[in-house]
């Protein structure tokens, strides 16, 4: 047939919109929205409409490559795969298997991530498996797990429309999750009050009921301040607190200290606004909290997430429709990569690596002895590469040279590695430094599933063949597993892989391709006749009672100084995605936001003599970049913002690798910077 329409899942953010790829003469040529899709309802954002654009880009990797001196030269699959296996085996025999780090990918399917962690654990023999969730919601997984017993979004995307109040913080929802932002707009139209707390004015905050601008890195103070007002005005849900939670007295004691006056001092938010926002949130019948990187990417990110969980529990906004604590996950399958066990401390389905029973279960399922200790996180692995404890990395679809904090540090770490292999669809900044590069199929060229931010398991369907000799990651992982001599990599289809994952991960127990084909299933879904779960924690929490955490405000790891007087915060814009590998190869998206820029307040710009579009140099203790100034009142004085999509002025040259002690997530959102005319 000359033209066909293939229903699949968007490869960008974690909303999980489905759409049709239009395929003409075997090539993906366009995107048409799917009107019956429950998530998108036939609407998409500009990234979704352009999700076909990079697929046929001439930069696509089409054949394996191996390093000869300072050049990467074409190789056969046998040569390249042989090199990876022999090098990793050699390094394992000299330095032990824990000298190898495997990075999985939030851009790959559940099935592929399942295989990546199985490859690391069962075939290579290390729990050193992690992925970029470490950089986005590691603190969510850790924090919500401690507070609620489950680290995922408590409610679902459609529920936003029926909330009476939506508290949005650290999420530029209309730009980073546009179709979730659209649901929040819809709720507003239906009468909901929307409160946005963000150091930047965002497209959503500009139309919201209330917009509060805190100084970056002071979030626990305003959250505790709201709890202070709620308790002192008796607006808390006493029944919920009594019957469903523990630790309220400790929370009450801590909250006492955070009077609106004190919070104004710390955060810069006027005290009356704190009181008003607290009343709006607490008096709503159904109030949802939505948050993203502005909360998680701090050196106290886990505590911050727990503070939000406190706020929801104190008002009884958990375990009901249109309530809850809702982390908006940023990548098409970052939820699924976590679910599938691409984490150093958790097997598939969040089963603890250091729990003997879980280990025994997986040893039996996989027929291999497994390591008893948890592995290394991604952020830790780069530190350990510098000290020589990590010798090799096998990287599937990640680009740490752009995505990780303090690029200079990452670059130095990579240069110390004895061996690095990268599997990707484009010659990324990281792939260019690799010893072996393998060409992978992109989302449009393979079957599988992505799990959206609201735990919905969505089908990814093959629309076209991969270019040249490129192959799907699941086939590459199967071959590597077999070449390491491990049994259990004899899969002929992603469907078979999902069947195995469902058998070992109880939250996916009832998931199979036949069901995904006809219905939207959200985990937990333990059995075939289980309908899946929309709202978590109805009636009781997974561990019985929810746990209040008495968390205190602590300053960010790096504070401003005379030499570095600005707070630098980083993030996304609407038109690009992460390291730009795909969106900057999409003409229409590149047209909308072609060049790197730094947002700076007009007052600051004036005192530095900087005009709009002027070239400026931004420096931190770690590096400097030159880019153009975007003078805008949308950012508060004293703070500057740089999107991290642009390799020519990479924001992560500047960011701080200070880590949250629990989740080891870096503090992308705050570091001290200086700005001067270039």
């Amino acid at each position, binding site marked *: 047939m000359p033209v066909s329409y293939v229903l699949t899942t968007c490869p960008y953010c974690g909303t999980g919109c489905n759409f049709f790829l239009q395929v003409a003469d075997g090539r993906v040529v366009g995107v048409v*929205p799917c*009107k019956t*899709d429950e998530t998108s309802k036939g609407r998409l*954002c500009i990234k979704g409409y352009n999700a076909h654009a990079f697929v046929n880009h001439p930069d696509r990797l089409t054949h394996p490559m191996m390093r000869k001196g300072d050049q990467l030269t074409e190789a056969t699959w046998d040569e390249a795969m042989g090199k990876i296996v022999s090098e990793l085996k050699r390094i394992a025999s000299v330095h032990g298997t824990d000298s190898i780090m495997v990075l999985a990918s939030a851009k790959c399917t559940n099935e592929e991530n399942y295989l990546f962690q199985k490859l690391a654990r069962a075939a290579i023999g290390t729990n050193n498996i992690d992925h970029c969730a470490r950089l986005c919601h590691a603190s969510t997984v850790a924090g919500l797990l401690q507070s609620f017993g489950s680290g995922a979004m408590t409610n679902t995307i459609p529920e936003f429309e029926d909330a009476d109040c939506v508290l949005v913080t650290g999420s530029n929802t209309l730009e980073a999750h*546009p179709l979730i932002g659209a649901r929040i707009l819809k709720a507003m*139209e239906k009468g909901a009050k929307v409160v946005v707390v963000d150091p930047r004015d965002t497209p959503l905050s500009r139309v919201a009921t209330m917009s509060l601008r805190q100084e970056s890195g002071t979030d626990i103070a305003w959250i505790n301040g709201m709890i202070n007002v709620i308790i002192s005005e008796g607006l808390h849900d006493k029944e919920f607190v009594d019957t469903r939670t523990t630790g309220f007295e400790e929370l009450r004691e801590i909250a006492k200290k955070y009077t609106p006056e004190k919070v104004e001092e710390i955060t810069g938010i006027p005290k009356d606004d704190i009181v008003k926002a607290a009343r709006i949130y607490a008096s709503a019948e159904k109030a949802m909290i939505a948050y993203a990187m502005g909360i998680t990417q701090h050196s106290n990110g886990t505590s911050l997430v727990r503070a939000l969980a406190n706020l929801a529990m104190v008002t009884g906004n958990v375990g009901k429709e249109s309530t809850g604590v809702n982390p908006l996950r940023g990548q098409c399958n970052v939820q699924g990569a976590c679910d599938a066990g691409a984490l150093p401390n958790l097997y598939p389905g969040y089963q603890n690596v250091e729990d003997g029973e879980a280990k025994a279960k997986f040893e039996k399922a996989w027929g291999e002895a497994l390591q008893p200790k948890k592995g290394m996180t991604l952020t830790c692995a780069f530190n350990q590469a510098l000290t020589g404890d990590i010798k090799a990395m096998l990287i599937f679809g990640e680009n740490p040279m752009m995505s990780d904090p303090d690029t200079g540090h990452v670059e130095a770490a990579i240069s110390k590695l004895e061996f690095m292999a990268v599997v990707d669809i484009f010659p990324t900044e990281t792939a260019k430094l690799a010893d072996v590069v393998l060409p992978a199929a992109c989302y449009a060229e393979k079957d599988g599933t992505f799990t959206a931010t609201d735990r919905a398991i969505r089908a990814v369907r093959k629309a076209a063949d991969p270019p040249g000799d490129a192959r799907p990651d699941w086939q590459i992982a199967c071959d590597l597993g077999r070449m390491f001599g491990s049994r259990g990599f004899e899969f002929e289809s992603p469907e078979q892989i999902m069947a195995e994952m469902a058998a070992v991960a109880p939250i996916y127990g009832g998931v199979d391709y036949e069901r995904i084909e006809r219905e939207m299933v959200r985990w937990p879904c333990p059995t075939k006749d289980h309908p899946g779960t929309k709202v978590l924690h109805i009636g009781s929490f997974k561990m019985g009672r929810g746990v209040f955490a008495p968390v205190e405000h602590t300053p960010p790891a790096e504070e401003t100084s005379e030499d570095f007087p600005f707070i630098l915060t980083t993030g996304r814009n609407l038109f690009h995605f992460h390291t730009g590998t795909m969106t900057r190869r999409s003409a229409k998206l590149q047209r909308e936001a072609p060049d790197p820029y730094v947002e700076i307040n007009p007052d600051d710009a004036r005192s530095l003599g900087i005009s709009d579009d002027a070239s400026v140099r931004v420096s931190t203790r770690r590096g400097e970049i030159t880019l153009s100034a975007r003078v805008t009142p949308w950012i508060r004085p004293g703070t500057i913002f740089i999107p991290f999509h642009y390799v020519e002025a990479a924001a992560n040259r500047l960011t701080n690798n200070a880590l949250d002690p629990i989740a080891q997530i870096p503090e992308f959102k705050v570091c001290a910077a200086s700005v001067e005319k270039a």
Partner: protein
Amino acid sequence: MRLAFDEKGADYLLATREEHGNVAPVLLRKGEDPGAIRVDVPYQMAMILTKVNKHVKDGKIAVVARKCDERAIAELVKRDLLDPNRLALIGLACTAEQVRECRCTDPCPSTVDIGECAEPSTEDAPVAGVLGMSLDDRFDFWIDQFRKCNKCFGCTLNCPVCFCDECLLEDKTFTPEKGIPPGLAFHLIRTIHMADKCVECGECERSCPADIPLLSLRKMVNRDMKELFGYVSGDPERRSPLLTTLDGDPMEDDMHAC
């Protein structure tokens, strides 16, 4: 199928059918198993037809078309963007509910092959609501609506009569790339561009994640076109009155250049 291939003599059928628990556009070749055809979900078939048409080099395509699709196809044919000899329309009548939702005044296809024609709509509450406002309130109303725009381009991408190779909405002079929402020019340029083409299919409004009432805006401009020039878009016979010479006569050629 019989309708498309035997009665209408087509080689292909462009329709919608059930796939993966959803309703999907599908291009079928004569003799192929059609699967479960569904006509209850209003996809903009004229827009999909223009996408499909680029890749179907020969043969006749039958397309399931509502009246607005039929009118959109007429606009495209007038501009030489579709070859009428390679098309066959299978007329689909909209349900009363669909007519009400679009406040459609012209719902009945010229040949009704599927369904029964519902009565045209005589009321348009959203437009009446806007017209009932003072000019200042009306301006504020539209500003508030346009502030929600997230620049997805869904209104142009899904529009059956938005066909320029180069889009002014992507021109830096008028819509500079400084993020969202785009300036007022974005919406006003599009409004003017649609003036002699819009067939009121409502796809722009249905596609808008922010629920901006774009159909109301189009209807108000169309009402002006009718009052000022007596012109209704989608008429297969009449050319746009905006394509005039300085003497007031319609220009003879290069219509699609505009």
